């Protein structure tokens, strides 16, 4: 076989180093038993960034409103648990994914008529509208004060949520993330995923070869929204609390920064970016509670200047240079 098709085929296969993140994730569980609350938040953020990678990195849809789907998932789980007493965690996640996926498909149908800066603004506005809706419906959402004391039944009927040390929440989140990752990985290496990359790289040519561009984009947007919804639902379950802060520019822009820092369109960018950003933030904030943002900002400036493909891109460049 000639080298080019061979290489194309090979990249679908699992490589040995792809086990590394998961081995690290498990090792962290034993190495840092007192930091699992932070670890759990980290895993949720990775899942959220992964969902954004699907639309931003692969389909090239630049959106600032992805927190909207995170919020839909988070509130679905919260409202089901508080108002209807539905606090089985796994079915809660499914409900969160479905709800966010439906919102994603519908809003994608409308919003994806635009692209570029217009899309950026419209997605931002959608999120703001949702934020106001959540505030006005404070009888259901609890508004700014949120829903106190959410509790969930045992995971798979076996593992109770660990309020103090977050042990079961960490492993639970790691499993959900692994599942989400398999979905995304399969998707981007499928023909569907390849056509998304095609749309990102050359929209005109994809139209010319007769690919159903709009339909593909909407479906990708819907799937990504569902995944973000699962991340949101997971957030509510492991935190046992949800309030209006799941929305807003800070979360939406934060996840984008994480993805760009790690390297978008690279699958593992979400992992590297989230770990680098959150661990740096966590350590800096602990050492300098008042001035940590300076250190974080300088790091981001350095990455933006010297590592355009994010940390993974930098790694690839170094390996290529050698």
């Amino acid at each position, binding site marked *: 076989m000639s080298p080019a098709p061979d290489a194309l085929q090979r990249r679908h296969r699992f490589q040995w180093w792809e086990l590394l993140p998961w081995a690290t994730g498990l090792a962290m569980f034993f190495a840092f*038993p*007192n*930091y699992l*609350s*932070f670890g759990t*938040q980290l895993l949720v953020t990775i899942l959220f960034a992964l969902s954004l990678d699907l639309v931003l990195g692969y389909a090239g849809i630049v959106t600032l409103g992805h927190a909207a789907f995170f919020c839909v998932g988070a509130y679905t789980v919260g409202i089901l648990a508080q108002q209807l007493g539905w606090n089985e965690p796994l079915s809660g996640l499914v409900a969160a994914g479905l709800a966010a996926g439906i919102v994603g498909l519908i809003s994608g149908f409308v919003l994806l008529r635009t692209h570029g800066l217009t899309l950026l603004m419209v997605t931002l506005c959608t999120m703001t509208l949702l934020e*106001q809706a959540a*505030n006005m419906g*404070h009888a259901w959402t609890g*508004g*700014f*004060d*949120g829903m*106190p*004391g959410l509790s969930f039944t045992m995971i798979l009927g076996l593992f109770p949520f660990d*309020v*103090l*040390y*977050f042990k079961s929440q960490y492993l639970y989140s790691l499993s959900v993330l692994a599942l989400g990752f398999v979905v995304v990985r399969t998707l981007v290496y499928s023909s569907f995923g390849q056509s998304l990359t095609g749309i990102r790289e050359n929209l005109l040519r994809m139209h010319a070869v007769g690919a159903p561009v709009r339909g593909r984009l909407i479906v990708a947007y819907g799937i990504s929204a569902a995944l973000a919804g699962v991340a949101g639902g997971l*957030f509510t379950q492991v*935190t*046992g*609390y*949800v*309030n209006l*802060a*799941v929305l807003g520019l*800070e979360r939406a822009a934060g996840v984008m920064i994480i993805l760009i820092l790690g390297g978008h369109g690279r699958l593992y960018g979400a992992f590297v970016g989230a770990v680098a950003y959150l661990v740096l933030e966590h350590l800096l*904030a*602990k050492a300098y*509670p*008042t*001035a*940590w*943002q300076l250190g974080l900002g300088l790091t981001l400036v350095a990455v933006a200047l010297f590592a355009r493909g994010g940390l993974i891109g930098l790694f690839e460049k170094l390996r290529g240079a050698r």
Partner: protein
Amino acid sequence: MRISRILKLGVVAASFAAVAATAQAQTVKIGVVLPYSGVGAEFAQQVDRGMQVFMKLNPGAFGPYKVELIKRDSKNPSGAEAKTAVQELIAQDKVDMLTGFIYSPDAIASASLFTEAKKPAVIMNAGTAWITNLSPMIARVSFSMWHAGHAMGEASVKTLKAKTAVVGYSDFPPGRDSLDAFKRAFEANGGKVIDAIPMGGPGQVPDFTPFFQRAKDRKPDVFFVFVPSGDHAVAVMKTYNALGMRQGGIKLVGPGDLTPDYKLQGMGDEAVGLITAHHYNADLDNAHNKRFVETWKKDYGANATPDFMAVQGYDGMAAIAHAVVAMKGRMDPEGTMNALRGWKFDSPRGPLSIDPATRDIVMNEYLSEVVKQGGRLVQKNIGVITAVKDMCKELKEGKCK
């Protein structure tokens, strides 16, 4: 021979244990969770400095016991960040008590951890009334939104002789709580609230003109406004004057959030005549407060002024010091909470105590009017309601049941 060796070993072991016990008893670890970065940093600084001033003015307050403060940033008010900080303070740093909590969501989200880990928490700000109901490990030294709102409603009728009122509020929980509290007290005393206007969220400062115009058209005796302390308050004063509401005979009243002490001088003469009800202002006339403000200005500059959050930080440290001394440095959770229940203190804000039943604060509410004295704006005391409890819990309103 053998017996003496065993005895010796026993003595050595016992003395080791004794040393370990005293070492443990002498250092009490306190986790401080405040939003040190971001938009809340201004508030965190007030509380943090209040704590410092207490340590400085009362070096002997902790007796022979050493106290170590471990500070953590709670960042944005999502609750999740604060909860992570609290979890690590408990699991990793093994703190004995927790304190801080500016934003209500931070305290609400962390409440289950206080209960589960049995760690007493002294809330230094978070003002949502029902927070103290969430965990038996919570004691609050700050306020509930009902304290000032209810007091202002009562004073509007009794002192200002108002019959009608319009309420304007930022549309988030503290705003809605203030509306409920004011309305309840105002109408219980024979007044009538003729309109309630939501005025945007707490994030950005909105253009208040349309809301204030609507209030002006209703021609009430008083216009009660709740907005977040800070830049919102400055904009409220400007709009009130621009629309000529004072000349129209409408008195502007509100909780002390309208007159943040450190922004008061910057508001200019427009603020003169503004009437507020609150548990503290820097111009309170008592010896303890004079010493407090003096030390503050000496340490942080002549233009720096402590506000209500600063005094809450001060009183929070006083409460912790009391608990540490009462427990002789061994912070058994039930004992600590018992020590906090019924605790009385003569604070810069006047006499205060912790209600043994609700673990919430009981304190004076001061009615004050902004006047110009010797070229600077001063809050003149025009009335006081003593020993005010959180009326939300007293009246069993809404979620306070």
